[in-house]
């Protein structure tokens, strides 16, 4: 296994362990849909949209949490997807570059979720959320309820990921509605990947990218899908891709 993937597994599992201990000790409450720690609260943007679609209700607490989340997103973008989400870690570390044929379907996934939420009058994805399941497993463990649904749903998402990764894409980059919405909120965050003068346009980075981003000529609509997984940095042989914070190079 590559060094980056090891680091990814370590960082995401430590996120989960931190969540577990903080929940047990009572520092934070809630699962990924809405986490509260003291006065700070964060909310899943898709969760908020689903509640809005299902019940046409938006509360002050949700708006406040959404603002905090957006602040994080404007700084770090989809850092969560590549380095903190446990499902994302599994998806990214099992990803291998292959030929690609699929279109980009995450916007359709968001529409699907919202339409079904509206029809069912229920936050449909929240019940079986691919991002939330690892956190909900912790929650279910603490409160001692059955985890069949969670395990089944997680297995379902990973099978779906195995299917679409045959086409060379990962779940996170091309289909995950939660991650895509996080990207939509801040398409070009302070922390982002960019090519520099060393780039020879060999397109190795494009082939290695799980999100199918044309990195040398990335448009804003492509950047939405970037999970900061840094596979492009890893595969570039000319040190032509770098991770930047605002305009300052920090890696690569």
């Amino acid at each position, binding site marked *: 296994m590559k060094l980056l993937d090891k680091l990814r597994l370590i960082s995401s599992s430590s996120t989960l362990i931190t969540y577990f201990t903080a*929940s047990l000790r*009572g520092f934070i*409450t*809630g*699962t*990924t*849909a*809405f*986490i*509260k720690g003291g006065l700070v*609260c964060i*909310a899943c943007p898709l*969760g908020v949209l*689903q*509640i809005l679609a*299902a*019940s046409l*209700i938006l*509360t002050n*607490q*949700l708006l406040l*949490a959404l603002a905090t989340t957006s602040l994080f997103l404007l700084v770090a973008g989809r850092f969560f997807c590549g380095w903190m989400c446990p499902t994302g870690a599994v998806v990214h570390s099992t990803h291998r570059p292959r*030929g*690609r*044929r*699929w*279109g*980009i*379907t995450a916007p*359709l*996934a968001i*529409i*699907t*979720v919202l*339409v*079904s*939420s509206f*029809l*069912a*009058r*229920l*936050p*449909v994805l*929240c*019940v079986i959320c691919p991002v939330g399941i690892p956190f*909900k497993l912790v*929650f*279910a463990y603490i*409160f001692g*309820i*059955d985890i*069949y*649904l969670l395990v089944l749903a997680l297995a379902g998402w990973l099978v779906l990921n195995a299917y679409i990764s045959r086409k060379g894409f990962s779940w996170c980059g091309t289909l995950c509605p939660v991650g895509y919405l996080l990207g939509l909120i801040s398409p070009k965050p302070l922390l982002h990947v960019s090519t520099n003068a060393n780039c020879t346009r060999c397109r190795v980075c494009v*082939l290695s990218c799980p999100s*199918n981003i*044309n990195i040398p000529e990335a448009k804003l609509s492509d950047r939405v899908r970037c999970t900061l997984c840094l596979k492009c940095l890893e595969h570039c042989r000319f040190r032509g891709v770098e991770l930047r914070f605002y305009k300052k190079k920090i890696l690569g």
Partner: protein
Amino acid sequence: MRQGIRRRDFLKTLVAAGIIGSLGGVAKLLPYRRVVRPPGALVEEKFLSQCTRCGQCIQTCVTGTLVPCSLGEGLLIWGTPRVDPLRAPCEAVAGRCEISRPCVENCPTNALVYVEPEKVKMGSVKWIKENCIAYRGGECLVCYEVCPIDGAITPRRGIPVFHSGKCIGCGRCVYACPPEPKALYLVPDGERRIETTR
């Protein structure tokens, strides 16, 4: 290698999105069990549409009576809070949670709203007389002793009589009931739910 979306792929995924979306809509028809909700819960349909299953109420509950619903109670209500009197009673009436209720205050979507203690009614208690110590001739009126409501339980010749009209469903009697299996269980019958969010 191609970038962008082919029209055929787009149409295929659009159809898939439509099918999955309507499947999600059909999910509404799945059966689920009626459970005892925390005090101040909206009517079931609205409650299910506003609850994000985030677990704030369950984790902040002072007494620890709230537990998430399991899959056996229905896919639609999985993870939503319910009152489990076997763990602890709910103290919304004549207890620690009369004035401030952590479950209500921490609910981000107002699926739970504050109601005055005298308007709380989560359900009522049911009696299995075969298990009851007093009915079998023993000396026991624990349920009558712990009941916070005047006239919800009245003793008649040493045997408790339950009045479901006055019972608020706090679960104190169920929690305190000594025999195993218990002679009392909580049902959502007669619950008073909130129609609109203020």
